[in-house]
C-alpha cells in the first residue's frame, strides 16, 4: 500500500541540505507551509535558495528563516511588503542575492519546469529593466522575452485536504503558486488541514493529483497563519 503520509514536519524536511533550492507555496498567508518552515528553521541550514512570491514577514515562517541567516538567494516577485525587515536588512548588507521576476512569469517558469518544457516567450517585461540581458524576439508583431523553466530540490506547500496517495485540495485562495510548485519540486511535501482516506476526495475535486506529491503531513496550521491578521499583513 502506498502511504505518502509522514507523522511530523521534522521527518518531511530531514533530507533538506545546505545550499538546497526550495519552493515555498502560498501568497500571503493562504497556502503558506508555516509548519514545514519552522521545522526547516530548526535544522540550522545555510545558503538556501528560496523561491516564493515574497520575502517573508515578521519573525516566524519565512521571515524567521531570513532572520536566521539561512538564505543565500531569493527568487520572488514582491519582496517589498511591510514587515520584510529580516530580509531587507540582509539584502541591503549584500548578504542575500535577489532575483525579481514578474509574478505571472514566476508562476509560468515554475509550471514550465514541472511540465517538462524548456521555457517560453512572454510579452511581460519586454523593454523594461527586468528584461535586461535576456533574449528577446518579435513574435506575431510583438516583442517577447525568453524565460527559462524554474525547478527546485524541494517544494513545500500548505493544502486543505490530502490523502495517503498525495492527492490535494485547496480552500479558496490557497491554490495560488501551490499547484505549479507541486509539479516542480524534486521532492514535494504538503502539510494539510485534513487527512482523508484514499477515495474520499472526488476525482473531479482533486486540485493536485497525487503523482506530483511525495509526502503529506497532517498538522494544525502555524498559529500565526491560523489567525485573522491586521489588514495588509
Amino acid at each position: 500500500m502506498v502511504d505518502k503520509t509522514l507523522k511530523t514536519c521534522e521527518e518531511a524536511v530531514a533530507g533538506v541540505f545546505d545550499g538546497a533550492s526550495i519552493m515555498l507555496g502560498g501568497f500571503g498567508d493562504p497556502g503558506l507551509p508555516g509548519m514545514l518552515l519552522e521545522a526547516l528553521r530548526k535544522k540550522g541550514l545555510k545558503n538556501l535558495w528560496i523561491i516564493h512570491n515574497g520575502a517573508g514577514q515578521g519573525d516566524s515562517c519565512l521571515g524567521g528563516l531570513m532572520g536566521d541567516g539561512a538564505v543565500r538567494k531569493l527568487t520572488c516577485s514582491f519582496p517589498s511588503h511591510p514587515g520584510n525587515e529580516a530580509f531587507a536588512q540582509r539584502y541591503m548588507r549584500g548578504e542575500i542575492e535577489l532575483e525579481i521576476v514578474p509574478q505571472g512569469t514566476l508562476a509560468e517558469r515554475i509550471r514550465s519546469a514541472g511540465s517538462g518544457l524548456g521555457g517560453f516567450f512572454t510579452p511581460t517585461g519586454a523593454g523594461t529593466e527586468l528584461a535586461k540581458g535576456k533574449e528577446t524576439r518579435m513574435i506575431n508583431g510583438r516583442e517577447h522575452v525568453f524565460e527559462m523553466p524554474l525547478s527546485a530540490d524541494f517544494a513545500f506547500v500548505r493544502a486543505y485536504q490530502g490523502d495517503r496517495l498525495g492527492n490535494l485540495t485547496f480552500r479558496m485562495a490557497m491554490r495560488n503558486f501551490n499547484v505549479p510548485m507541486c509539479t516542480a519540486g524534486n521532492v514535494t511535501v504538503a502539510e494539510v488541514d485534513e487527512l482523508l482516506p484514499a477515495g474520499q476526495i472526488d476525482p473531479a475535486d482533486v486540485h493536485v493529483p497525487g503523482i506530483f506529491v511525495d509526502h503529506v503531513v497532517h498538522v494544525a496550521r502555524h498559529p500565526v497563519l491560523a489567525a485573522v491578521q491586521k489588514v495588509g499583513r
Partner: protein
Amino acid sequence: MLTRDGIAYRVACELSEGSYVNLGIGIPTLVGDYLPKGKDIFLHSENGILGMGPAPEPGKEDIDLINAGKQYVTMLPGGSFFDHPTSFSMIRGGHLSHAILGAFEVAANGDMANWRTPGEKVPGVGGAMDLAFGVKNVWVTMTHVTNKGKPKILKQCSLPLTAPRCVKRIYTDLALIDVTPEGLVLREVAPGVDAAAVQAKTEAPLKIAPDCKEMDVPAKFVAASVAR
C-alpha cells in the same frame, strides 16, 4: 478637484456591464466601493479569484480569502477560484477588460512607471508588469502631481518603466485624460478646475477635446482646490 474617493467614483462610473476588472492597491481598490449597482462587473485578483465582493464585516473574515493586496475579501455568486498560472493566463491573455492601477509617472505615449520608487530599499514588481502588458484597457488613477507639486504626467518617464505604451486613460484629482495616438487628450476637468490649470500641472502637452466638460460627480467627492 476630486477627493481620492472621487477619483475612484469617476472610474467606477465608466465600467460597463460585463467588465472583468483588476484593481491595484491604493485608489484603485476604492473603485470597488463605487461600482454601479445592478450591473455584473467581475473583480479579479492575481492570487486566483474572479468575482470578489465587498470587504467582509469585522469578525467575518475568512483566513483563506484575501486579495492580492492581502486584504480580506468576500465572494459574489458566480465567482471562481483558480491557481496562479490560470490567473495570469487571464491577465496576459487579454481576457481582462480593465486594469485600474496606481502610477508614479505616465508619459504622453502611454509609458507607465509604477514599480520602482526613488529611495526604495527593496524593489518589487508583483503582478504590475503582467497587468500593464496584458490587459486590454490599462487605466491609471493617481493624484495629478506629487506631494511636492511636481507633475506626474510627463513627456517622458524618468523612473524605470513598468510597461511601454500601455496606458489608455488617466484619472486624476484634476482631470480625465485619454492617451491617444495623437497624444494626450483632456476629456474632463474636475469641478472648480479649468483646462489651463490642468495643463499647468501637466508636463506633457494636452489637447483639449472639443467636448471637454466638467466632471459630473456628487458634491461629496469634490475637495477644495489646494494650492500645491
